[in-house]
């Protein structure tokens, strides 16, 4: 008899997801899907609000990567008021560095949460361990010392965020053209040296390194299982600087294939020329893809695995991460790595990378300077802005327009988890075939394998379901004679 298996809800992720697997009479997998079952609608309801409130409102999309949304929005507003990166009148170094500090700290805490609270228990206990055990509670019972370190590491990241944004979650720091506060020496020293139970930065780096080693050890012991688990081909996308190295805060969007050949590279302001999004009846999450390549070939992967695939190297100023990245690159001998569970490896590397970046940044005296906001000169207002950052889960883009009176008339958001939609569905299918295909008896643990595959992407289904759409706007370009030369719907 044909069967339908469901996972409802997908757990240890943020947001609401569901998996359905259809097996035929011979227990072959006919279909397997990840459904995102939630819909919110930020792009619509931000309209009409004053533009300077947008980064405050839109960061409510996500409780874990709100910093990314806040900064992405802030960058779009920089553009809008005429002081965006590349405009010639850019925000001041202190502002950029304070923003970066918050951004790296978020990457540290977000990755740590996903990695230590959701992934590590599965590595230590096995993915078919009792569902009651393979989580942070089980970890508390098995290794309370490890949990204490994990808690301390996450706490430290959150305290950096609080220092920058005033709150651990949904705080404020960025305003159009800059930031509203700098980092005092007291605040800096507290984070560097640690006090009242807070870790020192060196301890943070140490714990990050230990965390990476958990993966290394696990991988050593389970090489075959880990490497063969859902090897899913996809293009990889990341923001990179001029040297082709990842820059979490700013850069151009680069997309590479398996051979690390660049298949597309764009200024993010042009994203609409490159991306389309398909809709399916069975999920609220859309399916973005590169127009030129079509939906099947043009779906990209974003996030830690994509970034470590795309980046050429890390700077020598982050030596431990640099070495870890080289070990990662060596493992696939220069090819892009498509092994889903290696995303966790990449994530652990990025925790270390963030920690080292923060240490470097905290020592920068620019953080204490008090020129915080670049006021836009008369006439600089553009009324439109695009912002992009590498959020923990991948490339995040915000695009707004506002009218002269100051209210938002249009907002479009392309979030990382949405970018990963197709790849996640491929992963679900692949794991389902490998673990369930042909099996008469199916256990909970086998089903959990599918979730393990999804969790590798650390999908933020909350983020992905912000969508409610946006007003189409016809942009007409007239030549000097007033003749219509181009018209497109944006």
């Amino acid at each position, binding site marked *: 008899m044909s069967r*339908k*298996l*469901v*996972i*409802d*809800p997908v*757990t*240890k*992720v*943020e947001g*609401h997801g569901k998996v359905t697997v259809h097996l035929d009479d011979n227990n072959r997998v006919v279909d397997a*899907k990840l*459904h995102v*079952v*939630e*819909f*919110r*609608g930020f792009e*619509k*309801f931000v309209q009409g609000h004053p533009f300077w409130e947008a980064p405050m409102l839109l960061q*409510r999309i*996500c*409780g*874990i990567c*709100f910093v990314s949304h806040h900064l992405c929005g802030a960058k779009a507003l920089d553009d809008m008021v005429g002081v965006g990166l590349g405009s010639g009148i850019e925000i001041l170094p202190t502002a950029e560095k304070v923003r970066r500090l918050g951004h790296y700290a978020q990457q540290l805490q977000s990755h740590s*949460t996903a990695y230590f*609270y959701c992934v590590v228990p599965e590595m230590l206990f096995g993915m*078919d361990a*009792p569902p*009651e*055990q393979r*989580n942070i*509670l089980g970890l508390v*019972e098995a290794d309370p010392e490890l949990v204490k370190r994990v*808690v*301390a590491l*996450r*706490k430290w990241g959150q305290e950096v965020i609080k220092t920058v944004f005033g709150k*651990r*979650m*949904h705080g404020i720091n960025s305003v159009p053209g800059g930031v509203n506060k700098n980092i005092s020496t007291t605040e800096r020293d507290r984070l560097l040296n640690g006090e009242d139970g807070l870790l020192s930065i060196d301890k943070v780096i140490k714990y990050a390194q230990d965390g990476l080693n958990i993966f290394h050890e696990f991988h050593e012991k389970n090489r075959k299982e880990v490497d063969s688990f859902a090897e899913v081909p996809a293009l990889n996308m990341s923001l990179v600087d001029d040297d082709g190295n990842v820059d979490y805060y700013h850069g151009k969007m680069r997309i590479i294939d398996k051979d690390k050949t660049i298949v597309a590279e764009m200024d993010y302001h042009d994203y*609409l020329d490159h991306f*389309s*999004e398909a*809709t399916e*009846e*069975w999920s*609220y999450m859309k399916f*973005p893809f590169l127009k030129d390549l079509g939906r099947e070939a043009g779906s990209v992967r974003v996030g830690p695995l994509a970034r470590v695939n795309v980046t050429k190297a890390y700077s020598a100023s982050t030596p431990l991460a640099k070495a870890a990245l080289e070990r990662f690159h060596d493992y696939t001998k220069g090819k892009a790595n498509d092994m889903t569970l290696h995303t966790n490896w990449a994530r652990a590397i990025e925790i270390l990378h963030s920690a080292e970046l923060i240490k470097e940044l905290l020592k920068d005296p620019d953080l204490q300077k008090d020129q915080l906001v670049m006021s836009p000169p008369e006439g600089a207002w553009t009324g439109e802005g695009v912002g992009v950052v590498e959020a923990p889960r991948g490339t995040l883009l915000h695009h707004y327009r506002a009218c002269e009176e100051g209210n938002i008339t249009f907002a*479009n958001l392309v979030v990382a988890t949405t970018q990963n939609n197709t790849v996640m569905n491929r992963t679900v299918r692949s794991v389902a075939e490998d673990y369930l295909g042909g099996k008469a*008896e*199916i*256990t*909970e*643990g086998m089903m959990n394998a599918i979730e393990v595959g999804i969790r590798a992407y650390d999908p933020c289904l*909350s983020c992905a379901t912000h*969508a*409610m*759409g946006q*007003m189409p706007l016809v942009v007409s370009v007239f030549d000097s004679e007033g003749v219509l030369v181009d018209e497109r719907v944006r």
Partner: protein
Amino acid sequence: MSTTTKNEVASHELKATPMDPSVQAARDEKIQVAMIGLCGCWGCTLSFLDMDENLLVLLEKVNITRSSLTDIKRIPHRCAIGFVEGGVANEENIETLEHFRENCDVLISVGACAVWGGVPAMRNDVSLEDCLKEAYIASPTAVPQAKLTIPYHEDIPRITTKVYPCHEVVKMDYFIPGCPPDGATIFKVLDDLVNGREFDLPASMNRYD
């Protein structure tokens, strides 16, 4: 969404590896807590983790059953406390909230979304039709000439006409405002309840943003 057909099986109904009985027995002696995020940003659940070291203090007395932090998909036995984040924005949220109300002695609305709908409730001044239209039909990234599609399928829950605060759907016992409430605030409330003290959130810990 929960139209269970004869041959549909949920993963949590399948045979799972059993827990070590002694570990399970130790857990059973604790105060049982279930947690859920409905329509929100998951921030309150993460804020729960923001209680830092106190998490370990709390876990000495408390066992967490269904939660997005575990893989327990349904409340397995009666719980003393249900921790509810997020407002009600779809059919599944309603059913989940009913499940929580039926299985928890005390339900707490945690955070702005649970308390009054929060940021997602901002869609309440737009019609659902307009929302869906703009998201899936009039989007600037919509695929040209694609078949007209909006999500509507047996495997995904229907979206509710409006977003509702939890207590307008089922009875809620306590409320912790905030977007999100601080970890310390959440700890204060849970610690009080776990130790048999009255719910008491001082003005200094109360915040709406």
